[in-house]
């Protein structure tokens, strides 16, 4: 099911959480809402879920072209996974997953046997076989989050929403779980919207990334496009490292640039810079090497521009750096790759 958000605004008192947001999420895709805290991404997710309602007269939400703006959350057939799991503490894993089926009105409710079959299928799907009689307090964080996911899937949702699902987990579990989620998404092929502030997470698992900042959407696109062709300075800075270079500059005339208060500024990623030890190459910017860090696979160079002392960071393969035979204090010549 596709989701269309048309001109949605949301204010909490004097605080603006969303400013006329427009967005279309395609059927069967895994879309991330990526942004710093306070950018409005969780509010947007909760509005799609029906846990919050947009400001009066500010626009509408459509599921497959059907207006659901005023449809209550329970009737939207949406699965929601909360950041802190929100499992029912007094129920076993089995009862947690079966909850959505048990609360159906008697004419829609499956039989006990059907419910049990479905719950066991879901327990297998999230790889928690044998844990069905455990209570949430007896599970690890990763296991709890998978129970929450199974519980959300039990009602056969048409859309799955995840609010920073791995935010409360440690780095290792996080990585495993997000790869597993990507695989699961390919299996069930459900329209999935995923909130995160972790750019690495978003770049790794999404089909589409929506970058948000200060209550608005900055850019929508495939991970590769968003990373390689950021539409705004904010996206440049939020996704990976970037150098800001005052223009004009001889080596960086063709770099993506934006007009800012101090004039035209070029945005260049550290690994997009070529380094020469001599001035023979045409159109290069002269700088001197301030420091080098060669711990790890990359050599990280910190250079200062000759004309205005602006710091430029460069990343290159270590063996390439060794070939240049440079030491701190030497002149280097830089240009856009």
């Amino acid at each position, binding site marked *: 099911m596709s989701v269309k958000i048309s001109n949605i605004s949301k204010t909490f008192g004097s605080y603006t959480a969303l400013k006329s947001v427009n967005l279309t999420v395609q059927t069967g895709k895994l879309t991330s809402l990526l942004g710093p805290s306070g950018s409005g991404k969780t509010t947007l997710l909760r509005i799609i879920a029906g846990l919050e309602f947009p400001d009066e007269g500010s626009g509408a939400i459509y599921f497959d072209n059907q207006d659901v703006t005023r449809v*209550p*959350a*329970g009737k939207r057939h949406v699965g929601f996974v909360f950041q802190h799991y929100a499992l*029912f503490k007094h129920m076993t894993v089995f009862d947690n997953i079966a909850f*959505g089926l048990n*609360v159906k009105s008697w004419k829609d409710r499956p039989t006990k046997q059907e419910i049990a079959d479905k719950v066991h299928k879901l327990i297998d799907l999230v790889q928690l076989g044998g844990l069905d009689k455990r*209570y949430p307090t007896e599970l690890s964080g990763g296991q709890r989050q998978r129970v929450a996911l199974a519980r*959300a899937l039990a009602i056969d949702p048409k859309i799955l929403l995840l609010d920073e699902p791995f935010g409360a987990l440690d780095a290792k579990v996080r990585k495993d779980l997000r790869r597993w989620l990507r695989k699961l998404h390919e299996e069930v092929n459900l329209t999935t919207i995923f909130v995160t502030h972790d750019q690495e997470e978003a770049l790794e698992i999404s089909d589409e990334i929506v970058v948000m900042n200060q209550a608005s959407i900055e850019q929508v696109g495939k991970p590769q496009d968003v990373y390689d062709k950021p539409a705004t300075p904010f996206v440049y800075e939020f996704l990976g490292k970037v150098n800001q270079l005052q223009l004009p500059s001889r080596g960086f005339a063709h770099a993506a640039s934006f007009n800012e208060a101090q004039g035209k500024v070029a945005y260049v990623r550290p690994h997009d810079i070529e380094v020469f030890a001599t001035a023979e190459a045409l159109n290069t910017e002269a700088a001197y090497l301030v420091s080098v860090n060669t711990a790890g696979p990359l050599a990280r160079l910190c250079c200062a521009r000759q004309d205005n002392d602006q710091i430029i960071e460069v990343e290159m393969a270590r063996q390439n750096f060794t070939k240049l035979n440079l030491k701190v204090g030497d002149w280097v010549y830089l240009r856009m790759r």
Partner: protein
Amino acid sequence: MESALPEIMKHYFKIADIRAKTRQQASDPVWLRVLLTGIGLLFLTCFLILPIYSLFEEALRKGVATYYQALVDPDALSAIKLTLLTALIVVPCNFIFGLSAAWVLTKYEFRGKSILITLIDLPFAVSPVIAGLIYVLVFGMQGWLGVYIASSHPLFPAIQSWIIAHDIQIIFAKPGIILATIFVTFPMVARELIPLMQMQGTDQEHAAVMLGANGWQIFWRVTLPNIKWGLIYSLVLCNARAMGEFGAVSVVSGHIRGETNTAPLHIEILYNEYNFVGAFAVASLLALLAIVTLIIKSLVEWRLEHKKTL
């Protein structure tokens, strides 16, 4: 006020206590530990154990037969019955009021919320005597209700004639006693549940909403099981207070023997008449009820902690 502490805080305090204890055991000299324990025990004996002992001793001074006679005395029996009746009505009322108040105050945002929270605390802040006087002023024959009954052109004449026809009396009658007791014990359930429900937040309720549960199902299947033990705990305390309330009830009761005397009031009357055996016999019964209440409370507390450490 211990009961106003969130349960989780009590748990942390207990851990802190245990830590402090082990620290002190490691560092303090023996004589200091003996001295401090001795002072503690002495206080406990003087102010708690001795009085309770003397209570039972005095009650049984003239033998079990006299003790029994004092309890089955019609006036004593009626006082005990009235006390039980009061508790039987007050506890369910506070269950409903307290639970709905805590629900509204923790799960919803609205204007005037802080005023409502302050109002809930009011009965704890004012003296019970004032609580009693408030009811006399509102429902007494010299109060608003009296003025209404005496009025020749009342609003809703049907209600006035109904009151007169049924001879409804509130002050110096059972309804007044029950109302005053409800007033005094009103904050107990809400005060216990508000921090508990605040701590739990609304995430689980939201999860239930997303899974299609209606309001009733959310309450019975999610909210109530989560606060069950805190609720039982507060109801036990509420019951103890309802049975023991003296001040507010004394003002509105009118002290009619066999009619509007509760057990605590009956004890006072017997004591003032120098009927010590009678007074202490009824008092011992109240003390027993209180001890049973405390045992239930401890069991519930144990259960609460057991669940937390799970």
